[in-house]
């Protein structure tokens, strides 16, 4: 009988983490910035059909980087979680915090129990309500279930560290939408030597001024205009 070979738990976790990080690094990045009227999400994504940024609930948006099929599954599970909760309690009881924790649990379990970890990072953002004084919330969940809450801006994906550095140096509170977008795009550009046009970007906002469902995609034409005014 062949002897089952021994791998130390440390080694196993290290290998898995490295595997997941490599998968994520291959994909393109996403940035999020708080601006005057809400939260802006900018993804580098040339596809207009396969989204990286999407709506979960009235004030909650989702963004994923890494392997599409994996974060797409997480997105749908998130919509289900939110809709069931909102239907059985009330719409106001659906929070980004609960959802982010659920994602963190799911990713943590998959990381420790499955042979192959998910090669994804996801972001859950909730826009605050000026009427009852709640603040914006941004949660960043890693492939192993690590969860962080971010302030003002967040970046994830392959070259997140460099992107974060640009955001840190130039971010100002109470940015207008065009200023926030300009900085977001600039930050995404640092890791490559081409400029990004509206055709390479997927942009959406959680717009506090909207009624009930705050999520809004910014179509290419409007995006081109916003990018032009920023220059």
């Amino acid at each position, binding site marked *: 009988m062949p002897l089952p070979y021994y791998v130390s738990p440390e080694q196993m976790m290290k290998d898995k983490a490295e595997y997941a990080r490599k998968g994520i690094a291959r994909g393109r990045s996403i940035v999020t910035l708080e601006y005057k009227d809400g939260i802006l999400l900018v993804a580098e994504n040339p596809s207009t059909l396969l989204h990286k940024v999407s709506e979960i609930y009235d004030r909650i948006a989702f963004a994923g980087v890494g392997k599409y099929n994996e974060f797409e599954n997480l997105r749908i599970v998130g919509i289900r979680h939110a*809709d069931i909760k909102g239907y059985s309690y009330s719409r106001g009881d659906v929070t980004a915090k609960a959802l982010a924790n659920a994602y963190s649990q799911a990713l943590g379990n998959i990381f420790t129990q499955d042979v192959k970890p998910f090669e994804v990072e996801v972001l859950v953002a909730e826009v605050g309500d000026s009427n009852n004084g709640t603040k914006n919330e941004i949660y960043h969940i890693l492939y192993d279930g690590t969860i962080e809450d971010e302030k003002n801006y967040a970046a994830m994906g392959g070259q997140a560290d460099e992107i974060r550095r640009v955001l840190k140096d130039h971010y100002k509170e109470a940015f207008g939408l065009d200023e926030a977008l300009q900085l977001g795009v600039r930050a995404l550009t640092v890791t490559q030597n081409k400029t990004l046009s509206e055709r390479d970007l997927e942009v959406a906002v959680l717009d506090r001024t909207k009624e009930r469902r705050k999520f809004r995609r910014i179509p290419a034409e409007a995006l081109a205009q916003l990018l032009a005014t920023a220059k």
Partner: protein
Amino acid sequence: MNDERWQHLMADRSPSFVDLLRRASPHLLGTPAAAGDAHADVPHGTTVLAMRYRDGVIMAGDRQATAGYQVASRRIEKIFKADDLSGVGIAGAAGPAMEMAKLFQTELEHYEKVEGDNLSLEGKANKLGQMIRMNLPAAMQGLAVVPIFAGFDEKAGLGRLFKYDITGGRYEETNYDAQGSGSKDARDSLKKLWKRDMGRDEALRVALEALIDAADEDVGTGGPDLVRGIFPTVKTITRSGFGDVPEDEVKRTCEAILSDRTLHGTGS
């Protein structure tokens, strides 16, 4: 080890919220059939109507819920926004009907978010029919829900409306329809007053004339309540979306109708 979980995910990729609830929380679905006849004790919504006009469809409903010979509520809303381009007017047992409207709203939004696309108007109308069919056991015991569904069909570029029976049977009406205890009177009124391609103001007036006629003839239907300031709810659904007709506009139109009727003696 996790085969089951993934097979589960693959098999359960239905974009339907109702299917999801049936799997995840079946206790939240449907009205359990009670023993005996629950009809008399339960508040019932009375009259709702929908009709086509130049820009789309207009929906209106009175504000009263009636339980037997009692007024159960004077201010309930019977016209609900289903999504940006459609609405439901509810008649029948008020509790199950409002629950159904809420479930229907969630169903449409859930589909839209999961699929990234809207259902066709036809698809929405069919889905509502299935939900009414789910309620059939309760309906047989007097808790029937018979909504009107109306919306703007983007593909066809016009307003369309659908009525249902308690078995979920779906019937498209071309011009107008009414549901609830005062529906016969409202329909009679609409038969005489409805015209093709009415403008918004005229359509509003016709809708309110019909509701006032229903309130006149049917004890269950509430008329404009000038003392408490309660007026019917009226909504329009056009290419640009689902909109409210402001209450003071409804109020002014109601007052104009009533004063015309007083003047001409037609109210007696």
